[in-house]
């Protein structure tokens, strides 16, 4: 499917390149097609794709011929992972804390405001939030850089400076992702906590005369976290979707942007490669989650 999906797009990449560079010469397009291996039948293409995939190759990009797709993806992936993972962790942590606070004071002022805001933010177009963030923090206030993952002409710097720079530049993209994903997560965690509050063991914990702190941290917090753990891993797939707009708006060199451009220029190998990588990483994440889960929840066993 990875293979077919991009190929269903209309238009021929070789014609496109030829038209833009060689007065649309069909002979030239034909030469390009041969170079890309697009002159063979779709089956031959498919089998060579599979063969290469088994060797860990994703083929060679058309639009940046003759660079291997894996090289392109490997360069982009870390940046996307950085912002996606960091923002997921931050938003999850915040959501956890605020979700619990809101649940504790269900119906209270904080709760009403938090939940209302969360709903509202959830229905806000993501890219718009990002745009507003660029506008305010990047352009007008100039607190953070508006683009790039690192400063221009950075030169040699110490590791610490390097990391500092990385996060200084990732701040706005991460902030925008956090703002958006925080809302949804908070609502979910809040209702998880509320759900846990209705459990008999929590009633019993109260009856036991435990300190409020103990009830909250030992009994409510952890149990409320569990149901959303697997969801957390799955949500990374969405986060990548979110990354497309982020990277576009923040000129951030990640994989979302790579996909977007590859699709627009019909560069099948890159599209295929990105989809494969994303699918593989999400599947791996889920697998890891399944491995870790038994340690968090003793009810689940590993077998």
């Amino acid at each position, binding site marked *: 499917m990875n293979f077919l999906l991009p190929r269903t797009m209309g238009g021929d990449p070789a014609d496109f390149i030829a038209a833009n560079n060689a007065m649309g010469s069909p002979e030239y397009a034909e030469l390009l097609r041969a170079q890309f291996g697009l002159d063979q039948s779709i089956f031959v293409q498919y089998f060579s794709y599979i063969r290469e995939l088994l060797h860990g190759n994703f083929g060679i990009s058309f639009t940046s011929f003759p660079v291997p797709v894996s090289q392109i993806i490997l360069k982009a992936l870390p940046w996307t992972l950085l912002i996606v993972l960091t923002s997921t962790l931050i938003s999850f942590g915040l959501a956890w804390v605020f979700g619990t606070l809101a649940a504790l004071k269900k119906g209270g002022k904080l709760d009403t405001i938090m939940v209302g805001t969360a709903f*509202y933010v959830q*229905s806000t177009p993501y890219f*718009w939030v990002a745009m507003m963030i660029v506008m305010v923090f990047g352009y007008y206030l100039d607190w953070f850089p508006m683009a790039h993952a690192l400063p221009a002409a950075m030169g040699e710097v110490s590791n610490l400076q390097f990391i500092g720079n990385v996060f200084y530049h990732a701040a706005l993209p991460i902030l925008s992702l956090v703002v958006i994903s925080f809302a949804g997560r908070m609502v979910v965690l809040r209702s998880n906590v509320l759900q846990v509050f209705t459990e008999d063991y929590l009633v019993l914990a109260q009856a036991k005369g435990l300190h409020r702190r103990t009830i909250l941290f030992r009994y409510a917090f952890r149990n409320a976290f569990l149901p959303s753990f697997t969801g957390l891993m799955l949500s990374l797939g969405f986060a990548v979707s979110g990354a*497309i707009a982020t990277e576009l708006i923040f000129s951030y060199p990640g994989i979302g942007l790579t*996909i*977007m451009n590859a699709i627009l220029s019909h560069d099948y190998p890159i599209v295929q490669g990105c989809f494969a990588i994303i*699918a593989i990483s999400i599947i791996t994440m889920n697998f890891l989650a399944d491995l870790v889960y038994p340690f968090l929840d003793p009810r689940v066993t590993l077998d």
Partner: protein
Amino acid sequence: MNKKEQTQVKHKSDLRMNFEKYILRNTRAKIGISIISMFILVAIFAPLIAPYEPKAIEFMAWEKPSLKHPLGCNSYGQDIFSQVVHGARITISVGVLAGLLTSFVGVFVGLYAGYKKGRVGNILMRIVDVFLVLPSLAVMIVLAAFLPSMGVINMIIIIGALSWLWMARSIRSQTLSESQREYVFAAQALGKGDFEIMFKEILPNIFPVVTANMVMVITMSMLTEATLSFLGLGDPNLVSWGQMLSIAFDNSAIIYNAWYWMLPPGLCIATAGYSFMLIGNSFLDIYSSDRGGAIQL
């Protein structure tokens, strides 16, 4: 004859009962409904409300808000207020239609896979899982690049094609648990057909979930429409809120301080989506408390 009439009357009162139950009793639902009705009214009477033709390139570019142009003019010299008013039409109808399409497919697949299980159901769910692993926005972009250009219909199909996945999943899990309930066994023991059980027995019981899901999908559809437009995959011949934002971004509205161009469409999307979410959420609340859900402690 008489009987039939009677049952119809009954039916109505049933609807009214549900209406009262789900909507009137719930403040949040009331707020949601009123906001959304306002938007729908604006959409319907757009030509009467909007002072100008939304696409007419008649005025000075970058005009600031004034009495003549409440929200100023955009970079081409189009009246932004008129565009916002007309945008309600496209954005909301894309949302609603995509929501309906999604619900239709999602409910069918979800019910089928959840109740009948079997091979077809399993394959369907496999497909759902496979697609869910891919970043949906990217797949939508591919689809957008693939489908022949048909404007709004295109947009609706693209959004619908992917958002039914979640819906099918949620309906399926709901159906799975519902089909463990004894009334389903009872229906089976009575010899009712599969489709009667799926649609007449199970569906009415998960209806609030369906509705809530649908409402969420509507919100998501409006957001997706905006995002796709922003990425340049929308239909430029239509004025939608997403399209407006897209053009605002592309034309560097930021450097012109054109908040009057960037804020209103975004706020409209958020507000409309918010009101849909309110409705959906209050449905779910009532549903779960109907099922003896959370008892407060």
